[in-house]
């Protein structure tokens, strides 16, 4: 079974401070990890994925297989980063190896960046 845990429901920081949103996962195979974000009154959307090793809006996330973690980090938080963040894992594959694209999501972390 696959599982994603985000231990913090709420996270508050001040503008310009570093921020780290924690994500731990449980999966027996080789997972694909994602971070999704939902800004106020907007749709849930992809922020970044581990396979791309990219930085989006100043955010980065490194997959640590030893610690089974995929924490999201930003060195200097901005007020516009305030949102709900979900960590997600894709690990289900059918017998042919094709993924149905099912994602298992964590509980979400509400990030508030104060001015």
């Amino acid at each position, binding site marked *: 079974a696959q599982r*994603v845990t*985000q231990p913090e*429901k709420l996270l508050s920081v001040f503008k310009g401070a570093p921020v780290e949103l924690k994500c731990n996962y449980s999966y027996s195979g080789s997972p*694909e990890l*994602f971070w*999704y974000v939902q800004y106020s009154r907007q*749709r*849930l*959307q*992809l922020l970044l*994925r*581990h*396979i*791309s090793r990219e930085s989006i809006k100043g955010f980065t996330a490194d997959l640590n297989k030893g610690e089974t973690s995929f924490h999201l980090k930003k060195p200097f938080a901005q007020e516009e980063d305030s949102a709900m963040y*979900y960590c*997600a894992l*894709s690990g289900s594959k059918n017998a042919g*190896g*094709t*993924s*149905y*694209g*099912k*994602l*298992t*999501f*964590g*509980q*979400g972390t509400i990030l508030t960046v104060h001015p």
Partner: protein
Amino acid sequence: DVKVTQSSRYLVKRTGEKVFLECVQDMDHENMFWYRQDPGLGLRLIYFSYDVKMKEKGDIPEGYSVSREKKERFSLILESASTNQTSMYLCASNPLRQMRPGANVLTFGAGSRLTVL
């Protein structure tokens, strides 16, 4: 350029009523999903479909059913709504044949907030 459209943004229903939530996508995606989003619980998968007339149960299918008669449309049905089904319902889609790692990106609809009284 809305790509996943959920027909109702807000619904209020009474206990025992039959409820239909409709979702349409215009990206020719094979996979479609219904999640419910609850504070503190995150997103939980109710049902998904990987082809017309095909469906599979997700993690919390009890009390729900689905219908996929056309590729672009995926409906969630609450046969007899109950108060514990009050929630935000999110529809999503992605292409089936994503053999590239990390290509499993979901496109979400705006959500349907259902209140059952």
